[in-house]
């Protein structure tokens, strides 16, 4: 093992020696720089590996040959090793990144970089209070130098403000240090910590406070961080990266040392400051449009989060708290560094202009990875850290902390994903080109890969759950590797993989899961068939797709809350990217993502509380929560969380846009298949928790109203749409309302109805979306009033739509009726008549949109432009035909699927089951024989048809204008096709249902947040003196706060 002191020595030696090599030229300078940084990285890596594998024990390194407290000593433990590795690596990569940009800066930049690195290493390793101060100063000064890399006025201003603030805080720190020395007689952190008896703490409080507040201000807490923001905004992106990854990391560790040294004196204080920073910065960032400053806001908020989490972890003695903090830290460091590097490549100030990234499309991968890692999504380390954290916090019942952390993360996701949307969807000006060098790409991809790679070890460190099943994730990663293949081959590979994985799953998995597994696996295979109609290699489609389906299968397979949540998030991410691919889907994908994330956070919190109550992470033991005081809360959270996925009313506003604007073959996936994940979750919740009450209010009762109103509003709005896919999307809202209602009945029949509805909804919604997708593919429009008369051009599609709307509306003899029959039996049995009536009413309203769909598209007048339109391509038709076969089979033999589902439901709700005698189903209220209905229908239909045909076989076929037009004739198909504002009278009567209450509500929240952001950010006046004012005020206020001075 190389002595850790070389981490400092190498850097400084190289820095000093560079002075001699001033004339040696650019190559030599950078060779020295990179070699020394690589050496340092290697040293710290060696230590890290050694320490974590246990081959070396932590080392305390005295300097000058004397033991502490006589001399300064350094320490190299696990944390130090890891953190030095982190900072050295990030500085190394940043230096690599800078090579091209700093060519003209002579030897100064490498020197400063080395000095900076030595400062970081020193801060991390030193155990001496004053030495810590010295290294912080080294870091600040080197940083201030690095800021002014271009020497323009903005950088000068930023550097000046930064130094000014640093000088002020360092003065305060010095006073604190000297008083602490006076109190404790030592400058060694460990000695001080040991010497601080309660009396001494009281006497030396002020000294400790000044040190503490000094380090805290170095961390740039809200609102005294204007100078820090300026640094992030103006500095070279590579410098931003080292500030974010290196300086923040080192300073955080310094903060941690100080806080530990002071005993528990300042934990509450730092929690408050951390929380305020985290939330405050995230909110203010909402208004930010400048990429680098946005990154600054995000960095500072993350630092706030880290401070908050670290203090919480210490305060509550959370077992693997250090690992949680490290997980968050490492994610933040690499993600932020990657983003800064990317911003250095893109060189666009405004986030709206980031569309240029698509000129180097592969850059989107690291970009997405970094953003997702920051938000804390799987499989990145932050995900596991967040998971562990919430588990622990929930176990300790820290409600406020959970709310703050999750709420803040949600706000953070807003601006981060908005940014991604801009990059993904905006187009750059024609004449701009993006040039990238290898030295720039290497760090970017290294960052991305590190984030992915670190996920696996992070998952192993979880204290609460056994490792998640990685197989699916591995396959998702594999799809990234085969991105270069043509789309058709990828389609085959992915389908084969899903079939290969899904078939044994279907045969082995039991219980209600098999229903959903069937929907997901079969659905995946069927809906992927249209993918064959794509040419090229469809970059990014297959990883997202596999991510979604892996997530879906993963939640089915999950045995533990953690793997459930892992795959749940993965599904969300995958589907987000899929939706984002649509043409106009930018805002909709964002709102989809946010709603899903919000829902997921509720689920996370619920799992946390459940863990806290039962200390078990198994999904099977979720039911144990039912007997604890948290049962209702857990149920509420889980329900709302899953309801965001089923898009129940109030939480539905993301759905129409997201489903409608997605690509043609994505819409059926997200609408026909993905929504069932929410139903699956709800069912799982209800099975585990049953009926819960909050006060006198029965949650299930409330949910039944939500379901009913979802059905009504969804169906009504569907009828009012002009866009075919939007219509179908709203229809999904309504249909999921039925399912929610059925589940909330908490009875055998209710669940049976909901489950059979899920199955049937899958079939017809996939058919409908594929049919409409095929039409849109041919017609290049989604507006129904621009279509018409397509029955002659697309007879197969028409047939598919006809069958599915009959199935959807529940008209016998097709399969949809079975679900309705069961559902009404359930309603009457339960006695929730009013909701039931609303459900019934919305069922009838469904006719409105179904008729509109089929009429305005297929019937009426064919338009000029569509006279040569061909039938939808085979890849679209094939799955429709397969599913129609399925629908017809289920319709003619409904007992073959209702009875087995009934058996499954019986396991949980044995009472009130149907009795089957052959195809005759009997509830205690009524009866229904699907096969007989089918026969009667067929018989009557055949007889009537025969009658008509015999009487009227010579009918003259005519064309579309051969209609009676009051002795006139139609002029144009466009003016003869009644389609626009189809249900005008209905709108006149019931238009109030269209009032976008939920939209206004959520808009109100976002508007408020944005307004708040706009107001708060006026704190950052740009005037250095104001910032100093704020710092002094901050010190005073925090001191008074801590001492109850207010």
């Amino acid at each position: 093992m190389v002595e850790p002191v070389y981490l400092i020595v190498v850097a400084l030696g190289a820095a000093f020696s560079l002075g001699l090599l001033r004339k040696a030229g650019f190559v030599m300078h950078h060779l020295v720089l990179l070699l020394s940084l690589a050496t340092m990285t290697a040293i710290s890596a060696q230590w890290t590996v050694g320490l974590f594998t246990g081959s070396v024990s932590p080392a305390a390194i005295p300097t000058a040959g004397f033991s502490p407290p006589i001399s300064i000593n350094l320490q190299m433990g696990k944390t130090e090793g890891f953190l030095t590795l982190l900072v050295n690596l990030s500085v190394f990569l940043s230096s690599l990144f800078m090579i091209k940009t700093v060519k003209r800066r002579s030897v100064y930049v490498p020197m400063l970089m080395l000095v900076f690195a030595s400062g970081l290493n020193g801060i991390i390793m030193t155990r001496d209070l004053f030495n810590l101060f010295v290294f912080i100063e080294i870091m600040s000064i080197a940083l201030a130098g690095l800021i002014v890399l271009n020497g323009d006025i903005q950088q000068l201003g930023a550097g000046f403000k930064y130094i000014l603030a640093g000088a002020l805080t360092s003065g305060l720190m010095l006073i604190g240090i000297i008083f602490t020395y006076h109190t404790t007689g030592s400058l060694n952190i460990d000695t001080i910590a040991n010497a601080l008896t309660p009396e001494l703490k009281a006497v030396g409080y002020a000294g400790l406070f000044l040190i503490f507040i000094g380090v805290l201000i170095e961390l740039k807490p809200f609102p005294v961080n204007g100078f820090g923001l300026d640094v992030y905004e103006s500095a070279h992106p590579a410098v931003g990266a080292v500030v974010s990854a290196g300086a923040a990391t080192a300073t955080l560790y310094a903060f941690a040392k100080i806080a530990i040294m002071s005993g528990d004196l300042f934990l509450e204080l730092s929690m408050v400051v951390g929380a305020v920073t985290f939330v405050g910065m995230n909110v203010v960032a909402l208004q930010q449009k400048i990429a680098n400053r946005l990154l600054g806001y995000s960095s500072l908020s993350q630092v706030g989060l880290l401070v908050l989490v670290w203090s919480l972890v210490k305060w509550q003695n959370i077992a693997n708290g250090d690992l949680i903090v490290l997980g968050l830290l490492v994610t933040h460091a690499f993600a932020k560094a990657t983003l800064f590097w990317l911003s250095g490549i893109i060189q666009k100030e405004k986030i709206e202009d980031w569309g240029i990234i698509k000129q180097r499309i592969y850059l989107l991968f690291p970009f997405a990875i970094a953003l997702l890692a920051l938000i804390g999504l799987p499989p990145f380390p932050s995900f596991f850290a967040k998971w562990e954290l919430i588990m622990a916090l929930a176990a300790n019942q820290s409600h406020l902390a959970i709310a703050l952390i999750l709420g803040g993360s949600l706000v953070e996701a807003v601006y981060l994903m908005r940014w991604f949307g801009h990059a993904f969807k905006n187009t750059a000006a024609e004449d701009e080109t993006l040039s990238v060098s290898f030295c720039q790409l290497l760090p970017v991809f290294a960052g991305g890969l590190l984030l992915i790679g670190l996920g696996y070890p992070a998952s192993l460190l979880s204290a609460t759950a056994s490792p998640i099943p990685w197989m699916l994730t591995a396959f998702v990663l594999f799809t990234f590797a085969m991105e270069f293949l043509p789309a058709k081959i990828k389609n085959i590979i992915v389908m084969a993989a899903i079939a290969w994985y899904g078939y044994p799953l279907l045969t082995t998995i039991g219980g209600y899961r098999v229903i959903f597994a069937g929907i997901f696996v079969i659905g995946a295979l069927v809906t992927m068939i249209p993918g064959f109609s794509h040419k090229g290699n469809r970059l990014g489609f297959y990883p997202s797709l596999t991510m979604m389906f892996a997530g879906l299968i993963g939640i089915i397979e999950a045995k533990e809350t953690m793997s459930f949540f892992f795959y749940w998030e993965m599904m969300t991410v995958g589907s987000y990217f899929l939706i984002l691919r649509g043409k106009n889907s930018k805002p909709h994908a964002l709102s989809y993502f946010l709603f899903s994330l919000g829902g997921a956070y509720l689920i996370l919190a619920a799992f946390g509380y459940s863990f806290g109550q039962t200390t078990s992470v198994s999904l099977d033991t979720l039911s144990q929560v039912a007997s604890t005081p948290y049962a209702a809360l857990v149920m509420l959270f889980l329900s709302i969380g899953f309801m965001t996925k089923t898009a129940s009313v109030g939480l539905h506003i993301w759905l129409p846009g997201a489903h409608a604007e997605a690509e043609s073959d994505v819409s059926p996936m997200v609408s026909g298949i993905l929504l069932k994940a929410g139903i699956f979750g709800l069912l799982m919740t209800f099975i585990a928790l049953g009926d819960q009450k909050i006060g006198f209010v029965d949650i299930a009762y409330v949910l039944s109203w939500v379901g009913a109103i979802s059905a009504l509003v969804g169906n009504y709005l569907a009828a009012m749409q002009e866009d075919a896919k939007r219509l179908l999307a709203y229809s999904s809202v309504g249909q999921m309302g039925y399912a929610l209602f059925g589940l909330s009945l908490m009875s055998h029949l209710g669940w049976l109805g909901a489950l059979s509805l899920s199955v049937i909804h899958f079939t017809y919604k996939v058919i409908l979306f594929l049919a409409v997708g095929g039409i849109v593919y041919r017609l290049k429009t989604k507006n129904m009033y621009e279509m018409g008369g397509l029955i002659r051009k697309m007879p197969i599609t028409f047939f598919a739509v006809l069958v599915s709307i009959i199935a959807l509306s529940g008209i016998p003899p097709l399969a949809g009726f079975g679900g309705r029959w069961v559902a009404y039996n359930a309603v009457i049995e339960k006695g929730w008549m009013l909701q039931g009536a609303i459900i019934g009413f919305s069922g009838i309203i469904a006719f409105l949109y179904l008729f509109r769909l089929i009429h305005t598209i297929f019937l009426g007048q064919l338009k000029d432009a569509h006279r040569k339109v061909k039938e939808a391509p085979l890849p679209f038709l094939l799955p429709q035909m397969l599913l129609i076969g399925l629908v017809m089979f289920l319709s003619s033999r409904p007992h073959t699927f209702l009875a087995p589902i009934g058996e499954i439901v019986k396991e949980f709700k044995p009472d009130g089951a149907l009795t089957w005698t052959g195809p005759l189903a009997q509830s205690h209220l009524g009866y229904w024989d699907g096969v007989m209905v089918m026969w009667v229908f067929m018989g009557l239909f055949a007889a009537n048809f025969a009658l008509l045909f015999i009487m009227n076989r010579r009918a003259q076929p005519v064309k579309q204008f051969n209609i009676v037009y009051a002795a006139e004739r139609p002029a144009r198909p466009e003016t003869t096709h009644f389609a626009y504002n189809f249900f005008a009278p209905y709108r006149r009567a019931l238009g109030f249902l269209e009032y976008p209450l939920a939209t206004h509500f959520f808009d109100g929240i976002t508007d408020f947040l944005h307004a708040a952001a706009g107001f708060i950010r006026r704190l950052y006046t740009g005037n250095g003196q104001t910032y100093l004012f704020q710092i002094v005020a901050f010190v005073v206020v925090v001191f008074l706060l801590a001492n109850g001075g207010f």
Partner: protein
Amino acid sequence: MNIVYAVATIFITINYGLVLQGIIGKVYARVATRIGLRIYQPYINIIRQWVTRTSINHGIMYYLGPVFRFTGGGGILIFLPVIYGAPFFSSFSSAGDMLLIMYFMFLGTLGMALGGGESGHPYAAIAVTRGLAQTTAAEFPLILAIFSIVTQYQTLDVNQIVAAQQGSVLNWTLFTNPLATIAAMLAFLGSMMRSPFDVVLAPQEIPIGPPTEYQSQFLAMLMTNRTIFPVAKTILYVNLFFGGVALQDSWLLTFVIFFLKTFFVYMWSVFVGVSFPRFRVDQSVRWFLKAPAALGVLAIIFVQTGM
């Protein structure tokens, strides 16, 4: 055997429906102090329509529209227990309960709408939107009323509901659950295509609505359905609210009861129809969702609280 019964049921009902149409035509005429048509006139009309020589066809769905329509109408009839206790008149009522009947009604509507739609005539589409809009609203009080009586009788089986009303006139739902009956009878008006709810057919504005392009045998089939569909609907109402028609000692008596009950229930819509002017669609939608719906809700509340 059931099939024979079913065919017979349909046949008898067609005749009954034709006679009823004649009578109603007469009533309308007499209200307007005219002498009016011959009672048997509907027979002539329908035969004449069936033997039209030429016809035109707008397409496959247009062709199938009347088939769907008639299948829907005939289906309801044979799924309904027309006469309680007589196997002859409830041939396929074992296929399903009230829910089946309620949902099966829409098959015809859908067929009509699709067929009219394919004719390419904008008036058909306009009429369908009006019809659908109005029907959806009219169904709401009906659903409430039905929920109310299903709660009351704890069954969805029409046979059992009829059985529960036997014994005395006071056992009729009309008297045991008057609110539900009123709500349902108001809803009944909305589905009978008579004034004030007949803007769907607005004879000159959108000539007779969805079937505006239908002619010859297609129209004949629709006219045939028109004879049975209202009767079937009326029978359902009679069964649910007015004690149904139970098989008596003599078939004659049974038919007299059957005739009287269905006639008077049917006449309810006629009487309202000749007395009131037309609603616009949005007005009728609002109307159904106010008073009748409120009555329906009250009916449910009364039943559930046992008042």
